[in-house]
């Protein structure tokens, strides 16, 4: 079974039901399927088949759904990329993921073609839908695609942090994604049909699994939001479209908890809000459950390498401690281990390990690293946590260097590499510093080179090359980076220095 079959089944069952509403159009399941088949036909004619990697660089929109499922329909691999990437970031990622064809919008295609240059054997195809939902395919550059026969079973590639260093590209098969999605759906035991508010970027594994795959298979309606998240927009959409479910990361939950006049909106249709991406603060969770007692706020935990969902604080009537992220989903096993890999008893803190049918195939082009991540079938998540005697999981921290800013994952190495391209920078390190709303924001430590540069110069340099959430909020100049041994930067020490300096500045 392919991801595309989920759409095909729902379109057969509910052809007239609205599938996606976005700023430009509203399309039914029948139209979504016919547009998907139209694009898939073109992609096949352009050589897309199993083993060919096709990137979808589109904002949250009905066109995103068409692109996503059309790639699956021709058996190729979907490479999910952020539409917020700068062309500089996108071109680097496209080369690293060995993408053959990019599906995107016209404006991005122009800039991307220029950035990639003529040497790259990469096709660029634009797609757009008019207000009647008519699909227009634009062939910008067409070249012969490459086939990666070792990975012809891979349905989806998403980027993630791994435990250290640069972002990794996770490979997941149809079976892994579909089995995880069906378990999630069974646990959630939704009242149907649902209207799903999609504000999280649809390239996130959380959104792909908990929203796109789950609700396409239910034949639900999506409200695809292609704009920054405003809590007032969300409340208006709930009222106007009778939204029943959405997925939040902590900063969205904080905005909802802090909103002063929610009663001016009719939120009675809203039944579920799933919370993931990082730990939602306890006081925020309590405030939400007190203020909105008709809504189920469901903590969940997952990661790309696990095919997404691992644990969930559902279903009712079971009760879950507020601080926990619930119990392991059915067919998923969780254990906690110490530094030597020994399994720890309940209430002891250690690394979270996971075993399930959803665990990934491996990282693209990094077989050694992939092998080290899975030992005897157990995936080492790199996250730190504990289990209680009832099997509830609690997140304590991350072993990873990853920074989470407003639900977006930031990999320090990527910003560090960009900084090192600046001739005024000799060495650089990125750490996360706490932020009341965004959880963390990136902060840079720079060892200057021979020429002078200011904090503003560094920030402007990054702005031209990186998405705005990755641009360091603060730059500190330092004579030497503190090290652990010979090669590892002591990030703990840098964090202490940053926090001290910021305290003094206040």
């Amino acid at each position: 079974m392919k991801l595309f079959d989920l759409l095909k089944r729902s379109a057969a069952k509910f052809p007239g039901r609205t599938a996606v509403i976005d700023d430009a159009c509203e399309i039914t399941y029948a139209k979504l399927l016919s547009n998907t088949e139209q694009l898939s036909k073109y992609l096949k004619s352009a050589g897309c088949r199993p083993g060919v990697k096709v990137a979808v660089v589109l904002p949250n929109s009905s066109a995103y759904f068409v692109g996503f499922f059309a790639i699956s329909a021709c058996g190729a691999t979907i490479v999910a990329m952020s539409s917020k990437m700068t062309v500089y970031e996108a071109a680097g990622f496209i080369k690293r993921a060995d993408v053959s064809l990019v599906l995107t919008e016209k404006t991005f295609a122009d800039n991307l073609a220029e950035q990639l240059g003529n040497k790259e054997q990469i096709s660029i195809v634009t797609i757009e839908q008019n207000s009647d939902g008519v699909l227009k395919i634009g062939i910008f550059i067409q070249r012969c695609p490459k086939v990666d026969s070792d990975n012809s079973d891979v349905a989806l590639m998403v980027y993630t942090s791994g435990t250290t260093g640069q972002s990794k590209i996770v490979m997941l098969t149809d079976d892994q994604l579909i089995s995880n999605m069906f378990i999630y759906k069974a646990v959630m035991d939704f009242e149907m049909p649902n209207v799903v508010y999609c504000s999280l970027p649809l390239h996130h594994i959380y959104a792909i699994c908990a929203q796109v795959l789950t609700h396409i298979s239910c034949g639900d309606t999506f409200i695809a939001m292609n704009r920054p998240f405003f809590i007032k927009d969300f409340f208006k959409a709930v009222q106007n479209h009778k939204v029943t479910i959405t997925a939040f990361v902590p900063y969205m939950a904080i905005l909802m908890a802090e909103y002063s006049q929610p009663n001016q909106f009719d939120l009675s249709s809203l039944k579920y809000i799933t919370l993931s991406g990082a730990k939602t603060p306890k006081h925020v969770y309590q405030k939400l459950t007190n203020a909105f007692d008709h809504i189920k706020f469901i903590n969940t935990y997952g990661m790309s390498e696990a095919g997404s969902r691992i644990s969930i604080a559902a279903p009712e009537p079971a009760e879950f401690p507020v601080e926990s992220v619930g119990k392991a989903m059915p067919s998923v096993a969780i254990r906690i281990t110490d530094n030597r890999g020994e399994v720890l008893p309940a209430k002891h803190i250690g690394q979270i390990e996971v075993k399930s049918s959803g665990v990934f195939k491996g990282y693209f082009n990094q077989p050694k690293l992939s092998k080290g991540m899975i030992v005897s079938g157990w995936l080492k998540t790199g996250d730190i946590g504990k289990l209680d005697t009832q099997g509830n999981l609690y997140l304590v921290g991350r072993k990873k260097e990853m920074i989470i800013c407003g639900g977006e994952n930031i990999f320090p190495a990527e910003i560090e590499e960009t900084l090192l391209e600046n001739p005024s920078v000799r060495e650089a390190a990125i750490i996360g510093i706490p932020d009341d709303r965004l959880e963390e924001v990136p902060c840079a430590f720079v060892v200057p080179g021979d020429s002078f540069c200011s904090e503003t110069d560094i920030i402007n340099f990054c702005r031209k090359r990186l998405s705005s959430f990755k641009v360091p909020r603060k730059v500190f100049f330092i004579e030497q980076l503190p090290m652990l041994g010979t090669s590892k930067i002591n990030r703990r020490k840098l964090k202490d220095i940053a926090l001290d300096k910021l305290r003094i500045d206040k």
Partner: protein
Amino acid sequence: METEKKPFTNRTEILKTLEKILVPWLDDKTKPNEQTNLLSDLGLDSVAILQLVLGIEKEFSVTIKDSELDSDVFSKLANLIDVIEGKLK
């Protein structure tokens, strides 16, 4: 105690100050005007919006609540100027 507000007497002055706050998101060619769409023309995302609002609060000595903000406010610079102007009255 009420904080002292800067004497922004007209929309042109507010726009000039906004231009300064918006510098990080402007390229060399873009000169914002009241019709500029901060979301589609300048591509501001959620993190950028938070930074912009903090900048506005600091420069104009005003407080803006989340309940006053939605995508319409940022769809035209004129709408954002309306919000700021309303605060300064």
